[in-house]
């Protein structure tokens, strides 16, 4: 990537900046204006009678990797389509590096590389031809197009398939070409909408590897259903529900908001025989749920673990402890 920022600063100064930015985001609740790459302001959008976005506000920092998670129809894709100037909001505005989607859509489009959920590409083209077409549309200088295509095909591991037609590619290969297409103009912002959806674990892992390579060098928005993906990749995660951001923060920060420090998973033979009132009466128990033969008990202290296990008595088959994950956060927040 020719225009990527050089890595000249020391690790210590990097760490200070990250900590300071994080402090600002989480404690002060907002970023300094020079740190903001994308500012979403009171976005509202309806499709007929369905309100997809309802006064959504969000700020995304320069070089940040923001994850957006939410259930189907929560408004994730609508939000990113509006940022990409594909859809127009009914109300509100989005500022991308100070440019408004209302007045400067062409400028904003040139700053964004967008990978939609489905890697829908022009089937009639060969991979190289497709990248050339989009390079020309993005206005990449003619002299740089071929070298850029070679560089990106190498990055996504598609050099040997460059002259094959798109209609011969599997979904995973199409997604790789889609990533190369989104990066062809070396944009400062990249938006991925469910990039690993429907891919086999190995290909999904490769795609995550590409995203990891770009992390810190570009401002990235990652819409995903996979909590572990958001947890492992994102600097911050925004939870969207019914067209609004209902919570936002680093994965650690969000996880800390889940009831309890630890979750106890107890599998039993006969769940009906367990006296649940005894579990509730223990001081450190915040909440508990039953799923088949398994009890999940959220605790705010580890000291009462043995007391809880005693409640299950001889019915216990297995006992496991687990730290709260983003999935627990999501389920807790959205329910």
């Amino acid at each position, binding site marked *: 990537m020719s225009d990527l920022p050089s890595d000249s600063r020391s690790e210590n100064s990097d760490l200070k900046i990250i900590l300071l930015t994080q402090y600002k985001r989480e404690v002060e609740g907002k970023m300094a204006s020079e740190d903001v790459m994308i500012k979403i302001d009171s976005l509202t959008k309806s*499709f*007929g009678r369905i309100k997809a976005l309802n006064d959504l506000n969000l700020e995304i920092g320069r070089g940040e990797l923001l994850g957006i998670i939410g259930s189907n129809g929560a408004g994730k894709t609508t939000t990113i*389509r509006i940022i*990409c*100037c*594909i*859809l*127009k909001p009914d109300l509100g505005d989005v500022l991308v590096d100070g440019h408004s989607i209302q007045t400067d859509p*062409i*400028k904003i*489009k*040139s700053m*964004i590389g*967008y990978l*939609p959920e*489905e890697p*829908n*590409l*022009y*089937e*009639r*083209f060969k991979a190289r031809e497709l990248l050339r*077409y*989009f390079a*020309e*549309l*993005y*206005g990449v200088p003619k002299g740089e197009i071929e070298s850029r295509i070679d560089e990106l095909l190498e990055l996504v591991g598609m050099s040997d398939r460059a002259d094959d037609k798109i209609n011969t590619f599997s979904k995973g290969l199409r997604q790789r070409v889609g990533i190369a*297409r989104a990066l062809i103009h070396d944009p400062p912002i990249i938006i991925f909408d469910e990039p690993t959806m429907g891919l086999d674990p190995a290909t999904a892992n490769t795609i995550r590897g590409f995203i990891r390579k770009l992390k810190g060098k570009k401002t990235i928005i990652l819409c995903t259903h996979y909590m572990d993906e958001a947890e492992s990749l994102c600097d911050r995660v925004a939870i969207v529900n019914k067209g609004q951001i209902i919570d936002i923060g680093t994965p650690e920060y969000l996880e800390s908001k889940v009831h309890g420090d630890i979750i106890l998973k107890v599998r039993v033979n006969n769940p009906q025989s367990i006296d649940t009132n005894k579990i509730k009466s223990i001081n450190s128990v915040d909440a508990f749920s039953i799923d088949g033969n398994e009890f999940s008990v959220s605790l705010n202290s580890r000291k009462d673990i043995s007391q809880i296990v005693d409640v299950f008595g001889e019915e216990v088959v297995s006992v496991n402890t687990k730290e709260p994950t983003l999935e627990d956060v999501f389920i807790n927040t959205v329910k």
Partner: protein
Amino acid sequence: MKYFSVSDVLEFKLISNCTQQLLGQVKDMNFTTITKWEFKGTLSSRKFLMIFLLQISVLLLMIVVFNSFTANLESENGISLTPSLSGFASMDVQDESGLFIDRLNPEILDVNRSNYNTSMKRMEAGKTTGFLMVPGDVVASINAMEPVNLNLYLDYSDPKSVVVLDEVNSTSKIISTAITASWVNSLSPQNTSTQNFKQQSSGESLPLQIINKAMMAIILFLPILLFGNIIMDSVVGEKERKTAEILIAMPVSHADIIIGKSLASILLIALQVGIWILILLITGFAIKNPLLVYAFILMASVPIVGITTALSVYAKNYKEAGIGISILYIGVAGFLAVPALAYISTRSTFANISPMTVVMRLFSGEVIPLTDYAVTVLFAFIFSFLSYWVAVKLSRRDDVVFGPRPGILRLIWDLISFKKV
């Protein structure tokens, strides 16, 4: 949502606004990349090559049909659009005057001269279906204005007797009409034409020369209509293949996309029409002013591609676009052909709103006044502007591209109320 007020419209602020927007867009336009790749992509696709070759075959077939049609017109037999039934049924006739026997249609009946005794035997043997006996003094009876009695014997066991009866009845009617007309004409004053008055003939077929020109014009306008499928694929295909999303995410305007795609279609039509004109010239058709003819056909393609694009932008899928375009093209064909054919009889300047009229006149080497050219160009320009304006307006609407799509009445209301969406 903003609306232009009525006073804005009346004070031409709207027109000025539209013009400024249009000029601004033209200045910043970046449609050439889309045109280049659409053109290149279509040319290299198998689907296009198939359509292209099919169109050439249609042209060659039409040349063959057209040549045999004109040959028939030039021959004394004329041309019959009804299928031949010769050999299907036969009838014996006794007609010394020749009044009936010469007028029975040999394409429908095998007619044999015969007499009563022979024919009765032939009918019994199943060799003929009927026997018509015309009195020997039929002409004298007609001249004396006396009734004529025909005797028709039919073998009703033979289903072909219906055909024989029909033919005898229709021949009787033809003869009766001719006799009546001849009698009426005998009462009319003769030799009415003088130096100052021209006798107007009526009821005769169009002169071959005019049919020739009209047919050639229709043939050359066909490629425009045959390319509807390509235009549809280029626009609706983006929705069907779900590539519209990434195309709209490119740093190009909606006008760039619409103009770029339409221009590629116009270039393909230009290529096809050029080849057709060459083929017609090579196969011996005389086309006067071929370059002007070419220019006017291409000019006609601009609004037609525009309106097809607008319809394709609105269509949800191929099926819907296909139905819409079929209906639309009936109207377009009517708009092209009706004024052109009307011009033959009326010579009205207004008939020049159809480029086909001008092309037909160019074929004949007629000197066309500039005002007539101006009518064609002006109309094509207005129609083009409107169709592309509608296409771009529709393409800017999220609901049209991604749904839920608004109804046509709602869209028309938004367009005529100049609602900014």
